[in-house]
């Protein structure tokens, strides 16, 4: 592989698992995550659900648990601060540094500047919410804020990912599994038309208080602030109640007019990701329960170990695929934008 940059680390396909609670964090570590990512208990992260996430004491205990076992903890601070709540976000950066987080995952450039100035030793990752899709953008964040890693939005094909990796010394992290979003990550305002709350500042696409599920004779209905999102027939798999994944009547036809509720599953692409030099694979789902974290971590640990052992012979087992399919939102899974054979 032609490499324009000398990489300082040989890190390859680190498994990054979600933790919405201390129990989930321990499940991820126990089943082979190289690192977990978590959020504080407020809207400084993009999974701001009631009762989810970590207070300072829990975060400290999680860090101890991970570090005792040689693993890492990353903190998602990936929403966009507003002028009147700026100090909540900078306070979260300060707490992350004090606690000894292995990295903070940031999206906002102002917050990055704050972190670099106040805590130069703190490792920075560029969040997927930062929407950097080119190596020029990634390198901009590198030059100005010294970011060590970037999580790429789920819009690039693998050849495009490869092009980014070749032209930067920033580690590249890709999403491997879980819920997909409409792919204008960091810039999506869609649900605020229903709820009045922008997902990227309030920290959630569909605030639970605005969501209503009702069993009706016609099927299971989901509503967001009164707006009908979908009506599931008796045997249809349901999805999260987000506006982007609803079925709407457009031009006399009712269908998923924006995006189908499918889950990303890139097991098949692991050999390519390894060859390209992808540093880490991220599993979506901090909102899910410890059972999900256990199941998904087990499968991905086994798969990554297998591909590192022998990439040429690697083939996902039917058992892995069945386990991941069971966990999926919606009807099926997809390789997402990574795989575009017509390209």
């Amino acid at each position, binding site marked *: 592989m032609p490499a324009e940059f000398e990489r300082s680390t040989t890190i390859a396909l680190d498994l990054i698992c979600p933790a919405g609670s201390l129990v989930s964090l321990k499940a991820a570590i126990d089943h082979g995550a190289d690192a977990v990512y978590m959020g504080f208990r407020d809207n400084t992260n993009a999974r701001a659900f*009631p009762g989810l996430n970590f207070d300072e004491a829990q975060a400290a205990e999680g860090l101890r648990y991970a570090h005792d076992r040689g693993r890492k903890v990353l903190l998602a601070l990936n929403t966009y601060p507003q002028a009147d709540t700026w100090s909540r976000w900078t306070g979260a950066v300060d707490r992350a540094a004090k606690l000894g987080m292995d990295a903070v995952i940031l999206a906002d450039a102002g917050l990055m500047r704050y972190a670099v100035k106040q805590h130069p030793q703190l490792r920075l990752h560029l969040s997927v919410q930062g929407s950097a899709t080119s190596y020029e953008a990634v390198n901009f964040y590198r030059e100005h804020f010294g970011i060590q890693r970037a999580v790429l939005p789920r819009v690039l094909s693998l050849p495009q990912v490869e092009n980014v990796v070749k032209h930067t010394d920033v580690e590249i992290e890709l999403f491997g599994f879980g819920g997909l979003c409409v792919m204008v990550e960091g810039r999506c305002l869609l649900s605020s038309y229903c709820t009045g709350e922008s997902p990227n500042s309030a920290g959630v696409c569909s605030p639970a208080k605005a969501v209503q599920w009702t069993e009706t004779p016609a099927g299971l209905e989901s509503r967001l602030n009164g707006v009908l999102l979908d009506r599931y027939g008796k045997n249809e798999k349901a999805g999260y109640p987000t506006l982007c994944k609803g079925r709407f009547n457009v031009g006399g036809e009712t269908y998923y007019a924006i995006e189908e509720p499918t889950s990303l599953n890139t097991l098949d692409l692991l050999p390519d990701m390894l060859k390209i030099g992808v540093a880490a694979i991220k599993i979506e789902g901090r909102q899910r329960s410890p059972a*999900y974290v256990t199941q998904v971590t087990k499968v991905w640990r086994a798969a990554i170990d297998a591909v590192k052992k022998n990439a040429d012979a690697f083939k996902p087992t039917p058992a892995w695929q069945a386990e991941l399919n069971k*966990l999926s939102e919606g009807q099926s899974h997809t390789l997402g934008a990574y795989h575009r054979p017509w390209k």
Partner: protein
Amino acid sequence: MLNLALPPQLANVVTRLPAAPPSLAFSAVANRLLWPALKTLDWQALAGRRYAIRVKDLGLNLRFTVTQSGFAADSGAPDLTISATARDFLLLLARREDPDTLFFSRRLVSEGDTELGLTVKNLLDALDPDTVLRQLPAPLARAAQRWMAA
């Protein structure tokens, strides 16, 4: 695997029972077995909220509130109703299935206050299973551990 389905005759009888005795029995059992662990959680924000657990295959409708001193049977309109089969409830209790997984596949139905449902789910998820197991009578703890690892 445990066969949790009741014989149809017995299920018929259970279905016809008034809701109050099963709710009373549920609260008594939950207080004895689960409350010692659950009381370590912060229930303050959820005071006075009413829940219904509908065990579909058994025809049971368990209605209760959670107070500072534990579960209490209740007959008011529930704020949150969760429906599933006995087996799926036990899979959730044992942390062998994720509620979202069951929800996507339509095996778990949540009706009423979504925010309350999510808060309770996240509260229970944060509870270390060992805390629950330690408080159970030893034979039951052993059985639970076997079921969790099955």
